[in-house]
């Protein structure tokens, strides 16, 4: 079809406003596709550059090997220490961060006087906006020496330090999402409970919180997602040695394994770093899938 025929068929000549409309639609479509395209490019690139090394090293040896020595004369590429560290670190951050965040949300939603609430919400907003390198810097200069003195360990740059930093970092998202969930519970539920003679606190924990359950789960999964993907802050406090994780040893996460060696890497080492990134990517995909399931589950109710 020639351009002139196309213009006539669409009726642009008689109606220039339609041309404008369609043009804008087209531009918006292209802009929307930028996001889709980025995801596709990243996914394809990661799979293409991450898979070969896994097969060169051997999937079992790669995923379950406990020794990582990428530049040794006899290199070993086992990433089990990184996987376990990421899981332990995230779990630790959730165990510490979620109760704090959750109770803070209940307090903010139900008990806090207006002034206190305003100040606290402002603080949480600021906390959410702090760049992760600042968390790392503060962790490095205060937390790491603090842990060394407090627990009498030779070096404070440990899994424990990373857990504390991650726990603080996930607080804002846990608090905000739980807060929204709690506030979304219909007032009538609580009034009914109060009218039946329950105290205020009983009402919050027996009625409000169960009703906001799915939102609170969403908060936890969001926290997991944030914690497992964090690199900068924990690189500065975790010590980055490829040990099997224990609370007071220096550890390396999946994210920091990629970040710390990428700049000077070459050959199979570099390919293996892409494979680690691929494993991390799969972890995050799984977490996102769970998040989506929770969200749709919540909406059905």
């Amino acid at each position: 079809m020639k351009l002139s025929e196309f213009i006539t068929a669409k009726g642009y000549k008689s109606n220039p406003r339609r041309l404008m409309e369609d043009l804008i639609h087209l531009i918006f479509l292209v802009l929307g596709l930028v996001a889709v395209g980025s995801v596709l490019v990243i996914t394809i690139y990661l799979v293409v550059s991450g898979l070969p090394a896994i097969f060169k090293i051997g999937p079992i040896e790669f995923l379950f090997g406990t020794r990582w020595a990428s530049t040794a004369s006899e290199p070993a590429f086992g990433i089990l220490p990184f996987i376990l560290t990421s899981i332990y670190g995230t779990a630790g951050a959730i165990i510490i961060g979620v109760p704090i965040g959750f109770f803070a949300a209940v307090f903010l939603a139900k008990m806090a006087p207006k002034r206190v609430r305003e100040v606290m919400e402002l603080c949480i907003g600021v906390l959410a906006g702090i760049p992760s390198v600042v968390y790392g810097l503060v962790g490095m200069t205060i937390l790491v020496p603090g842990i060394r003195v407090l627990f009498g360990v030779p070096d404070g740059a440990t899994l424990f330090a990373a857990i504390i930093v991650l726990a603080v970092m996930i607080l804002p998202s846990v608090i905000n999402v739980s807060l929204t969930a709690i506030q979304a519970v219909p007032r009538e539920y609580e009034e009914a409970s109060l009218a039946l003679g329950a105290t205020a606190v009983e009402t919050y924990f027996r009625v409000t919180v169960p009703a906001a359950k799915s939102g609170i789960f969403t908060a936890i999964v969001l926290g997991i997602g944030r914690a497992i993907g964090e690199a900068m802050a924990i690189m500065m406090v975790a010590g980055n040695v490829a040990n099997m994780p224990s609370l007071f040893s220096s550890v390396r996460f999946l994210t920091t394994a990629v970040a710390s060696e990428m700049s000077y890497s070459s050959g199979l080492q570099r390919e293996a770093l892409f494979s680690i990134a691929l494993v991390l990517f799969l972890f995050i995909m799984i977490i996102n899938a769970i998040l989506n399931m929770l969200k749709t589950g919540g909406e059905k109710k």
Partner: protein
Amino acid sequence: MKKIIMIMLVAALAMTAVFASGASEESATVSTDGSTSMEQVILSLAEQYMADNPGVNVTYNPTGSGTGITAALEGRCDIGLSSRALKDDEIAGGLTQTIVALDGIAIIVNADNPVSDLSIDQIYGLFTGEITNWSEVGGSDAPVVPVGREAGSGTRDGFESITGTEDICKYSQELTSTGAVITAVSQNPGAIGYASLASNLESVKTLTVEGVAPSEATVQSGEYLIQRPFVFATSSSTPLSAAAQAFFDYCTSADAASIIAGAGAVPVVQ
């Protein structure tokens, strides 16, 4: 962060290489390949040389000393860069080595650490975990916390190869920059680390090794032991192209000394 900037610089350099070669017919290319530790030195030299000699392009491929030597041997680059002296069989294979600079690595401890001198053997023991308490080397009763660089780092490679601790260091922390190592050492009374002599070592205590304090003079004279040469490896049989020879001459001339020093290494010619 610094590395990212460096990578971008290299990328920018590669880009200019593409454009420059298209723009001018007279342009000649000098290709260098090898040691990542020599990155700052070679990039500073290349930058200054290209500014002085428009139309000449100096490229740098950061692959590692071993790859650089092989590339020079196989004629895939003009100048191979190695941050260690060439082995006898490499010279027998047809390579000539020219030392353009020296790199001193300082051994640093916390400012409160009473130890001020260590032997190479003691450094070996401290980093490999054979010595776990500072009292064993004349210090106070405190656990030893070895702090090092990440795998692949030129400083780590240099330190480990000089002290014979390749792949057997038991680090407590592996950090990704010299600054981070210095910060970690300055905060932990039991820490020991290493850093390039050119870095700012004010917040930590620099040790003497076998009684010799690291300085430009002691590195040049060879008295300070924790040092390594930065070597240009060139083919003994095939002469360099005119452009490559000119760049080579520039790098080994006295003019280049201040640039080498500015890039954190110790020049051999004054």
